[in-house]
């Protein structure tokens, strides 16, 4: 498989916070890679730094940031502008904040094509209608003339997805695309993303805190904690053999119907996510980790558990099974 997006050793500092501390993420063509973690773990910042959309005053460093084989880390704002919305597109959690309330759906959607490709208006409108139909909107003609506030949350998210697809992107970055939606609509939107990916061969980087979403849609998962990817694996392997104490803890926190008995306490991770400042060394999870020991304050080794399964921890792979035996 060819790597569509390759991020090596990404570091982002925002003010006095080390938001991302050496994360490496690869998204292959036609693959869904999920970044999962709790708020403040650096997953959204990682995505924004790929798009060149970091807040003012932040500093980004990488050893490589390649998109379709080309180094884009050195691109200036002009060059990034040409890529964004064209070959790589992004959708956000709350469609209402990313759609312009003063313009109709149609004019916002056609702007993308007109700007990137110089497509004439009539053709752009046809393309917009075609995409609205593709994302399952029943009366595209009507919706094109409406304003975002006239649409329901699920419809708005569909419009966002359709808009992101206007220029046939190769990479779609979706930051919590279904978090604000009802479960019924969430299932519909995720099905849609899965279908589109198969039909269009999209690479998707999907950011979520919901392990249910990850399990159902991801090909590969990277678990982030305090700015680092602590574990990365193919989805089935991660859920079957979680290695990092944080991943294992996270999996016990979720009530699974039929698995956790009612009345029995859920697993939980004591403490809170730390705020990490530049110069912090060692494992960011050690204060909450039941397995922490002296070496966790030093350099943490990146270990291969199996093919494509990586672990950032001082424990050796398989520690959990040995402890249980």
């Amino acid at each position, binding site marked *: 498989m060819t790597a569509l997006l390759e991020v090596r050793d990404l570091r982002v500092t925002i003010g006095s916070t080390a938001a991302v501390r050496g994360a490496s993420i690869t998204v292959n063509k036609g693959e869904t890679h999920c970044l999962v973690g*709790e*708020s403040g773990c650096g997953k959204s910042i990682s995505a924004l730094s790929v798009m060149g959309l970091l807040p003012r005053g932040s500093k980004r460093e990488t050893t490589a940031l390649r998109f379709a084989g080309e180094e884009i880390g050195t691109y200036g704002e002009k060059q990034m502008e040409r890529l964004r919305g064209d070959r790589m597109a992004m959708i956000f959690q709350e469609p209402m904040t990313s759609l312009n309330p003063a313009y109709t759906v149609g004019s916002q959607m056609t702007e993308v094509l007109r700007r990137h490709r110089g497509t004439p208006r009539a053709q752009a409108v046809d393309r917009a209608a075609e995409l609205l139909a593709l994302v*399952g*909107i*029943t009366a595209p003609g009507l919706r094109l003339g409406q304003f975002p506030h006239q649409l*329901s*949350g*699920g*419809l708005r998210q569909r419009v966002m997805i359709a808009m992101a697809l206007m220029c046939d992107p190769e990479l779609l970055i979706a930051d919590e695309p279904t978090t604000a939606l*009802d*479960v*019924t*609509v*969430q*299932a*519909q939107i*995720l*099905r849609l993303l*899965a279908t589109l990916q198969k039909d269009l061969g999209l690479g998707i980087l999907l950011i979520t*805190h*919901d*392990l*249910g*979403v*990850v*399990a*159902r*849609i991801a090909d590969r998962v990277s678990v982030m904690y305090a700015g680092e990817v602590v574990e990365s694996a193919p*989805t*089935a392997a*991660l*859920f*079957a053999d979680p290695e990092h104490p944080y991943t294992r*803890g*996270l*999996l*016990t*926190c*979720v*009530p*699974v*119907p*039929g698995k*956790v008995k*009612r*009345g029995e*306490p*859920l*697993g*939980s*991770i*004591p403490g*809170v*996510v730390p705020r990490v400042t530049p110069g912090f060394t060692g494992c960011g999870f050690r204060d909450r980790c039941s397995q922490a020991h002296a070496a966790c304050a030093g350099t943490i080794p990146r270990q291969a558990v199996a093919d494509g399964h990586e672990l950032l921890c001082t424990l050796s792979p398989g520690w959990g099974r040995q402890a249980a035996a």
Partner: protein
Amino acid sequence: MTGAPAIEVRGLRREFRVRQGLFAPPKQVIAVDDVSFAVPAGSVLGVVGESGCGKSTLARLILGLLEPTAGDVLVDGQRLSGMDRRARARLIQPVFQDPFASLNPKRRVRDIVAMPLLAQGSIGRAEMDRRVDEALDRVGLSIHQGTRVPAQLSGGQRQRVAIARALVLRPRIVVCDEPTSALDVSVQAQILNLLAELRTDLGLTYLFISHNLAVVEHIASEVAVMYLGRIVERTESESLFAAPRHPYTRALLASVLTPEPGLGVPDVGLGDIMPDPANIPPGCRFHPRCPVAIGICSTEAPKPAHGAAGLVECHLA
């Protein structure tokens, strides 16, 4: 279970008038439509449904924050309307979704927790301090954290403050409206465990509103499914999750994405018509989205069928 149910609602209805525009006549929105149920003391009634189904309006009616258009709310056997606000506060207390919005940012945690005691107007300083310490301790906050302001606390700690404030008057009933929806999963588990522990230790009754069915299954003894203002199914938690009877309940359960890889994303089969509380369809209000609707569903509203297994409102159940 002895004595009166902790919460009882009879024929509860609440309408809102919504303005459509400057000159258009206002529209009637029925947020809660003829809802009746009883929650036995010491149990947990989970209320689930999509946004706009009326579950938060129901919570506000039961808390006495909204007046019903028709019907009655009885808390601990007493009619809520006309009850003294201070007496009401001693019986029933809320915990809301967003601890960032529901706590006064300028006050110390201690003072926030003491507020309900202060409002009673009859509790002395020493007693107040003692009760605040007790409430903070109950929810796992230190005396030191009591001197902080909400901005210095994490989301989970703030939700603990909100719970301490709800408990300080030692109420019998707590209405939890999406209490963990704004929290991270690891913190959500802490708060759910705390709520479960408090219920057993203090013999509390919860009305627990959530859109997260897995959370509701975990904590509720009975579940009510709301759709466009009506309870379409109400059953003991175990049988609801094992054998849902209403097609809407089945669709809701099918949409839950459990962390089981390889299963893919389910097809819920609801289509893309969204429920609109301002335009409630005739007949069964669920029929435009229902995958198994038949002729009668679009013309005649189903009657609630009470049985041993609970209540269901569907022509086909």
